[in-house]
């Protein structure tokens, strides 16, 4: 088999390739403009911008994870923020342990909030988080495990549609309440913050920020390729068949719950990675990340960008979050009206999002062209 045939799954994805190219360009050019161009130059890119775009890249990865299950398998999770937050907490725990004696209380092992709560020993589930590789493993395992247990219970008993959506929302709500409690051992209300460095690099340094930015971009590209491979495989077509006609897929002989579980766990792990990259860039993780509205906001990114187009999710995440940054800065009153309006408009008028609109417009043009060219009929495949 030629390498070209082996990469057919990517070859046909024109929009995806363009978006990947843009991301690649952004994560190569912007760091150079930040680090090499002097601050007074017009071409200098501030660290603030780098941080902001880094955040968007994490959101895009999160949106990708949601689009994978919603766009291709019809699972509308209103609790994906929980997986994002769990990944974030796993990273946060590593960063907390890195602080060491530099905390306010100067305790060699215990994070500040534990000293404050008069705890005398590290809870067992904090063990190992001083090791970067263990923590990174947990970034994958914690959301993955939760998704596995939750999904196993839900899909096995065939909870589908809005019922599933509502219990995923209840799941993240319950987790939020739990993480707000001090005795959960995750810093309660304040969460985890005051991080100092990662792998020995100061989080304040521009180079570290750029490094995290590039890492987010690379994670997004890899995540995209992974998702693209999955949806282009036969498994992807099984997912679509589950989305369109679940019982048909069952009667053909596919174990629907296994497929759903696989893609749900994969999606949760991607969300966890996004959360883990997000936390060192914003410098804090708290239970607010679990709040249901955060999860549901992800849905509007995907819906606006274009459900069922993987690169649409990326576009949607960046567009909506750029809008959010802009409006909450300029007209904070207006933002929630805008966001609410986006939900209504995208469901009523843009069932396939921005990407869908562009696609339609292109199809129409192609049709007109074909028409103009004459009676070629089936010339356009």
């Amino acid at each position: 088999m030629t390498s070209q045939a082996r990469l057919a799954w990517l070859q046909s994805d024109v929009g995806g390739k363009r978006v990947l190219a843009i991301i690649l360009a952004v994560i190569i050019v912007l760091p150079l403009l930040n680090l090499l161009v002097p601050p007074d130059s017009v071409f200098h890119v501030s660290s603030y911008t780098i941080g902001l775009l880094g955040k968007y890249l994490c959101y895009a990865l999160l949106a990708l994870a949601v689009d994978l299950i919603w766009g291709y398998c019809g699972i509308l999770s209103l609790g994906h923020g929980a997986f994002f937050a769990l990944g974030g907490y796993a990273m946060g725990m590593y960063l907390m342990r890195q602080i060491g004696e530099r905390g306010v209380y100067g305790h060699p092992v215990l994070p500040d909030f534990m000293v404050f709560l008069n705890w005398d020993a590290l809870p067992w589930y904090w063990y190992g988080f001083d090791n970067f590789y263990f923590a990174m493993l947990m970034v994958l395992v914690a959301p993955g495990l939760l998704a596995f247990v939750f999904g196993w219970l839900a899909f096995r008993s065939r909870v589908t549609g809005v019922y599933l959506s509502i219990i995923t929302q209840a799941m993240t709500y319950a987790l939020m309440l739990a993480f707000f409690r001090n005795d959960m051992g995750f810093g309660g209300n304040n969460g985890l913050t005051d991080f100092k460095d990662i792998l020995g690099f100061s989080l304040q340094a521009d180079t570290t920020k750029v490094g995290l930015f590039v890492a987010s971009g690379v994670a997004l590209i890899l995540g995209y390729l992974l998702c693209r491979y999955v949806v282009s495989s036969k498994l992807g077509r099984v997912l679509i068949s589950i989305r369109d006609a679940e019982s048909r897929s069952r009667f053909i002989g596919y174990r629907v719950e296994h497929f759903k579980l696989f893609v749900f766990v994969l999606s949760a792990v991607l969300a966890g990675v996004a959360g883990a990259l997000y936390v060192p860039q914003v410098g804090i993780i708290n239970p607010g990340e679990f709040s249901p509205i955060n999860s549901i906001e992800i849905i509007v990114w995907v819906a606006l960008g274009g459900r069922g187009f993987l690169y649409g999710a990326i576009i949607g995440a960046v567009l909506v979050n750029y809008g959010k940054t802009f409006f909450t800065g300029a007209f904070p009153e207006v933002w929630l009206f805008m966001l609410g309006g986006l939900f209504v408009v995208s469901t009523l008028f843009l069932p396939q999002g921005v990407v869908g609109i562009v696609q339609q417009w292109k199809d129409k043009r192609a049709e007109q062209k074909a028409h103009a060219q004459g009676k070629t009929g089936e010339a356009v495949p």
Partner: protein
Amino acid sequence: MKMIPKHIPQHILYVDGVTKSFDGFKALNDLSFTVKPGELRAIIGPNGAGKTTMMDVITGKLKPDVGDVFFRDSVDLTKHDEAEIANMGIGRKFQKPTVIESLTVFQNLELALSGNRGVFKSLFHKLSGEQRTQIDEVIELVGLTEKRQELGGALSHGQKQWLEIGMLLNQDPDLLLVDEPAAGMTDHETELTAKLLRDISGEHSVVVVEHDMEFIKALDCPVTVLHEGYVLAEGTLEQVQADDKVIEVYLGR
């Protein structure tokens, strides 16, 4: 790949004393009948006679309250779910044609192709040349060659019926349960469908549920009449049409 050894069983399907009720309403009431290997069987009955419920019970969608359902003499179908039963070799076509609307005709048939249905096998699955040939053969058999790359959702009602039958064939089941295949088809198409079902019986066992008497006549096979969840009469079409009980049920008292 089949879980069941390929010896010739006495009955491909053995339904005995099956009752299924919903809130006191007995959709199936002590239903018993058998299907022999290679047999083509038509099942008729008025609305609410329990035809669809019967199919649901056989394919594992519903569990009977009492009664036995055996496949190939030895497999107790009441202990398995839809996917397991499908993989054992029972295929089902729904009353309302259900194809995967956002996949092409080819992809629909690819999904139905018999083979391993595991998650990871699907992830790394590659179609072999032999499988491509098989899919193309089926596409030709059901007359959709022109529509090979069209989306399932773009097909007409009759074409969807055909595609679904094609998917059934691709599954290569021992037993096909076909619910109202002729609905929404032209006379010509109906005739073709009947011929197709006759052709595949022998190698496969086929149970057809249908309202259309012309179609039943064209099938030219033994007929079972269901009424209020039990078997009212059985025999050739002429025999059941002459049966007093059947006349009473169909024409009223």
